[in-house]
């Protein structure tokens, strides 16, 4: 295990992944704001939520990159395309499983069976995150593939 390489490229991959998702929101591809979504687990304050969520997302990125690195060690090599492949698998998992169970885990997210009671809350992401814009799956797939490709290309197995 090359700890220095993991920390460096895990961090770099997370920076790029976060930037792609934030950029997708900025140019109107998706409404999904991952730091906001994660941060509101801890606070309803929109500004504070984004800050906390940003930090939380980085920790997540590093944690997930550890799994990528473990996979590289398991097959004995790291390449950009293998990293991208793991990224795509992770993105598919996020879109189909993680987002659909998120309303059950997130204290401030509605589910689609909610009602008529309303409280100020987050909308559920829906299947593939489509409630956050029909191009949401594209940005999630691209961001995770790039994340995996960076790790695969630059992580050095020792």
């Amino acid at each position: 295990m090359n700890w220095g390489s993991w920390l460096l490229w895990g961090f770099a991959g997370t920076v790029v992944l976060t930037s792609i998702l934030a950029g997708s929101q900025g140019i109107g591809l998706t409404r999904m704001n991952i730091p906001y979504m994660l941060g509101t687990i801890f606070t309803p304050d929109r500004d504070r939520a984004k800050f906390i969520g940003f930090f939380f997302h980085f920790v997540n990125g590093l944690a997930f990159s550890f799994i990528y690195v473990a996979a590289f060690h398991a097959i004995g090599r790291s390449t950009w395309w293998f990293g991208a492949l793991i990224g795509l698998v992770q993105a598919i998992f996020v879109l189909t499983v993680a987002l659909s169970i998120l309303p059950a885990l997130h204290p401030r997210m509605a589910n689609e069976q909610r009602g008529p009671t309303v409280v100020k809350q987050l909308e559920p992401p829906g299947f593939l995150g489509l409630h956050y814009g029909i191009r949401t799956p594209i940005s999630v797939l691209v961001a995770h593939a790039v994340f995996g490709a960076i790790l695969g290309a630059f992580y050095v197995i020792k």
Partner: protein
Amino acid sequence: MNAEVPKIQDYAVIGNGRSAALVSNRGAIDWLCWPRFDSAAIFAAILDPKIGGHWSIRPAQESKTSRRYIDNTNVLETEFVTASGKIVMTDFMPVTSEEKKRKLLWPEHELVRQIRCEEGEVEVIVDFSPRLDYGRAAPKIKNNGQLGWKIDIGACVFVLRSEIELVRHADSLAAKIALKHGATISFSFSYSAEAPAVIPSLGDSITEKLNLTINWWRDWAAQSKYRGPYERQVTRSALVLKLLAYAPSGAIVAALTTSLPESLGRDRNWDYRFAWLRDAAFTVHALYGLGYEDDAKAFIDWLLHATRLTRPELRTLYDVFGEDPMSERELPHLNGFAGSRPVRIGNAASDQVQLDVYGEVVEAVSHSFGENEKLDREMQKMLRQCAEFVSKHWREPDNGMWEYREKRRPYTHSRLMCWVALDRILQMAGRGQLRKIDMKKCEAERERIREQIEREGWNMKLETYVQASDSEEVDANLLLLAYHGFAEASSPRMQQTHARIREKLLPRPGLVYRNERSLDLREGAFALCSFWEVDFLARSGRLDEAREFFDAALGFANDVDLFAEEIDPQTGDALGNFPQAFTHLGVINAALSLRDAEARAANLDRQSSL
């Protein structure tokens, strides 16, 4: 019982905060879309009695019908009195709190019909004829034995459970049963998108659901702080508004239906099962006015979320999750309500330019935040974007709030709402809630809009404000110049405009056309405009006239206090989509204005007598 096809006002509505159904006073469910308001209908007989699909439960004999909502609920009771006895049918969609739902395994959507015989003996006919995709296909109804009847559609399943034996006839289920005094039978129709589907229980479980539902609606109605004139109608309007709200996102759709005609037999038939930004300011004003802060805040959150992808430009309407509505298309297989073709789904107004929506959104945000409340960065960013957009584009022609599809025009109301946008932004900036705003620029643009309205929106010859700079006609929305604080209701210009509106747009007491084109289009009087008139009279201090007009307008509601979009001045029949949020918002806001005006008048009286 009347054997004719039901009129629009013959319907009442039940729902669960995510979907709703129309129940006719003949005992038929003629409109139901699951799982969402804008999903394809499984019962659409209101748009074509022959092929739309329905679920009818009624006495075999001729009967007299009356109905009511159980007090302060959306649980409907229809009473049928025949020569041999009396039955009461209770229709509802079960609802309860989220806490209680966690302990109960309920289907995602359920509609319950319970019939009890209260006198004598009555033979009851049941006809369950669902049709898929707005009547385009007859479903395969499978007998699932003790577990009821099942309709599988892809990953979704509909389940019908009944306490009596049903017989299959082609694509329908039917039964004929004699109910004796004291007998009760129940039906449950449900929808599940997840397997295994929940099979709802009957028997005592129905009574439990009914009690939970009644209690939930009563608790919600009791949250209203409104005490004032027309309390019954205001409460009903609030309950209707709640049925039009989509709880998972906080959106409020304009109406439950598509293509109920604005003019019988003609083509002014539109799909209203989406959320219009145009309604935003009225919605927030009404919800806060009644004390429903949670609902208002959920709506504001939806507004912020829905507009995220299109800002700084705002669309006219969005679906319940903020997406563009499906593209508009016609359903030629349906004959339409009373032969009013075409039936349309989707709405092309989403592509229109309506500059008034900026004022509506900013006014809604301004109203929803207290003077000392902090606006988060995203809200501030949205307001800055609105200020910039309005400052740049307010001079441009648009389609106007009535969404005319021909050439864009310089509508006075659109400019009024641009003025409102800048005015409220300046107020928030002045209170320190909004930073990085170019106040001088906003003030200058606001003043230019005012000058433009006073110069070009005012017709010197007719001595009235006019619908558009290039127009010699009045529009009822000019009354909103006073509502939004642009002009005092008592000002000479507003009084002259009001007099002109009364002269040109009032076909009979209690009714107001939206503008002078309404007669050419052979459309009905626009029900919301009646309540703008009440509001204006109240603001003018003409309280007796306001009450008189309010009474007359409310006289056009149906027997359970529901309004459609329009009213036929000749027959008094409801026209347009039903029930209509805009009209019920009008009822609430007019009552709030009247209450406040009466309180002001009483205070003045007290002070003058001291």
